[in-house]
């Protein structure tokens, strides 16, 4: 069903392939998406009449990431650490202030609208909010047709047929074509968003908290749907979410962000079972679970309470950004920024940015707790 492949000219240009920054997982195949040193700073102004620039929000501050064709990279991290900004940079809804974005082997960092046209179709975004991201005055059919009309794409058999096909793919009834978004529940609306994102046969979908607003049952439906689409259509995902259990379920690799930086990245099992960065430990320990009777042998999990406040992205701490809240911080942490590297004992592709990493735990639950913070 992907045979339409509308944009032959955007096929990866192998000859321009480069090793990038060297932080990539070292796979043979060229990544579909490659971010190097990507940066987005927002100016902050103060003063009502005479606006002065009072500082800059270092929303995304030099990150390296790769996403391979057909895989899901989960992106998690503190609220405000720059996940949505990263997603919007990738979808080219924001202009980066530094670094580069390569897609299919081609530098699109500052590509013009015209240059982006063919790629725009291939990179789609699903937004968190199923309420405000659909135009209430358009029918479902109109919403899903939209991207085809804007991009002047005529699928074989016509746009209407394609829309009905898409409705079926996402598990909606083609009879819903002429209904309006307010007649649908949150979960159904989210599927409309998915159908719209699929309209142009994307190769990469940036999904910014696509299931956060949904109840667990509908969340399960949508996650199963995305998983099936990935399997059947080979779509790659940059999957941003807060729910670590959902991320674990849907991602092959996971990156953890803190204050504009990637602090740890690894394949799923390695990250959840052998986290090395203290912040990853803290995150995993804070997941609220239903378990009234904990699983045999594991005992109740202790939550690491992070001391202190979230530092400001306007003036991030020197050295390691996590140091103001880290129970292992030492002088070196303030003086030197820890590089994102593979630590001894870690699997290939498991990178951590920490001077004094935690021991690789056998199980994600064996969280090392500093008694001083209890």
């Amino acid at each position: 069903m992907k045979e339409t492949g509308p944009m032959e000219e955007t096929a990866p240009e192998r000859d321009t392939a480069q090793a990038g920054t060297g932080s990539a997982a070292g796979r043979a195949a060229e990544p579909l998406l490659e971010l190097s040193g990507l940066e987005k700073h927002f100016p902050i102004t103060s003063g009502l009449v005479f606006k002065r620039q009072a500082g800059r929000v270092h929303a995304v501050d030099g990150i390296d990431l790769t996403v391979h064709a057909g895989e899901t990279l989960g992106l998690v991290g503190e609220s405000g650490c720059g996940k949505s900004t990263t997603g919007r940079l990738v979808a080219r809804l924001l202009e980066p202030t530094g670094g580069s974005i390569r897609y299919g082997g081609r530098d699109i960092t500052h590509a013009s609208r015209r240059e982006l046209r063919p790629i725009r179709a291939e990179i789609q975004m699903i937004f968190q909010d199923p309420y405000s991201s659909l135009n209430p005055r358009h029918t479902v059919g109109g919403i899903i047709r939209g991207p085809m009309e804007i991009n002047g794409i005529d699928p074989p058999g016509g746009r209407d047929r394609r829309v009905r096909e898409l409705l079926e793919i996402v598990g909606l009834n083609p009879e819903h074509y002429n209904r309006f978004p307010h007649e649908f529940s949150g979960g159904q609306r989210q599927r409309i968003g998915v159908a719209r994102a699929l309209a142009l046969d994307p190769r990469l979908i940036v999904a910014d908290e696509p299931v956060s607003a949904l109840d667990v049952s509908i969340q399960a439906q949508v996650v199963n749907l995305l998983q099936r689409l990935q399997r059947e259509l080979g779509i790659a995902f940059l999957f941003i979410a807060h729910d670590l259990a959902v991320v674990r379920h849907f991602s092959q690799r996971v990156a953890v962000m803190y204050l504009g930086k990637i602090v740890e990245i690894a394949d799923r099992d390695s990250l959840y079972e052998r986290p090395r960065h203290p912040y990853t430990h803290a995150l995993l320990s804070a997941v609220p679970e239903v378990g009234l009777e904990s699983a045999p042998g594991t005992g109740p999990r202790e939550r690491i309470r992070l001391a202190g406040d979230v530092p400001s992205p306007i003036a991030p701490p020197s050295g390691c950004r996590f140091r103001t809240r880290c129970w292992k911080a030492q002088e070196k942490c303030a003086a030197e920024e820890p590089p994102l590297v593979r630590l001894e004992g870690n699997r290939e592709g498991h990178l951590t940015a920490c001077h004094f990493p935690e021991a690789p735990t056998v199980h994600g639950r064996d969280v090392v707790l500093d008694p001083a913070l209890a």
Partner: protein
Amino acid sequence: MSTPFLSVQDLTVDFHTEDGVVHAVDGLSLGVEKGTTLGVVGESGSGKSVTALAVLGLHNPETAKLSGEILLDGRELIGAPRSVMERIRGAKAAMIFQDPLTSLSPYHTIGKQIGEVFRRHTGASRAAARDRAVEMLTRVGIPQPKLRVDDYPHQFSGGMRQRAMIAMALVCDPDLLIADEPTTALDVTVQAQILDLLRDLQEQTGTAIILITHDLGVVANTAHEVLVMYAGRAVERGTVREVLGEPHHPYTWGLLASMPRLGAPVDVPLRPVRGAPPSLINVPSGCPFHPRCDYPALAGPGLCRAERPELSPHRGHGDACHLTLARKQEIVGTLVQKREIVR
């Protein structure tokens, strides 16, 4: 027993639409005592937010028809004059809204919006209101609050906006706080921080809290009692231990089974409740869950279709399902054994 601080009896909320009457809330009763938290969970569209808005008198009387009884501290709120409701909102009862972007005005700074609520209820000066706004932003963990108090909502991340909303709801130390998905937009460490904050507030001021959430883990960790809603009705109610440890209603089982868990195998697809959410215009007859339920056959021939099960008893652990208690316990036992439900 005396009436609880907030007592809702037999609440119905109907919306008259072109397609027909939407029965968004259909005979709901609940009670919350001071100093306790009631967790409300349930399907999207089951009437959780509509109930919350009814308590705060925020429905448009033109389109929403309410009946039943809502007593806050012994005072009837249904049909109360607007001026009374305005005084109650913010000071006595406050709400954290589900969608922070549409409930914050894009045209005013965050600090101004928080300060305004404070000024309206306390008559404080502008300067005092601004100080209070900074204090509240600090309490909800916004870094550099003095600088960011003058930001507009679009300059905040999703989670920061949510925290600003929380600051606004808490600015007058309300007696009743309704938190509608307060932490959905937040990462787990900030979520834990906010839940701690709500707990501290509760300890200090004895606030009664209604916590609406789809995260059963959050409920397990913060609520005292739980109410499970389906199609505008309460289908199960009890303490956290009762409802999550000994769930009795098939819909509650469905919720627990569809949850992704950190320890679960990843190659098995998640298990949503089968079928589609019910129409609220033509609500299924009898038990509204029957078209999606796996057990009507065990309840007796035709019973689930014909007769609406009532929530029983009036206090303590109760559920609205025709199955016998022994049958429910047997089924839960099997589901736990198959590890479809973890408790």
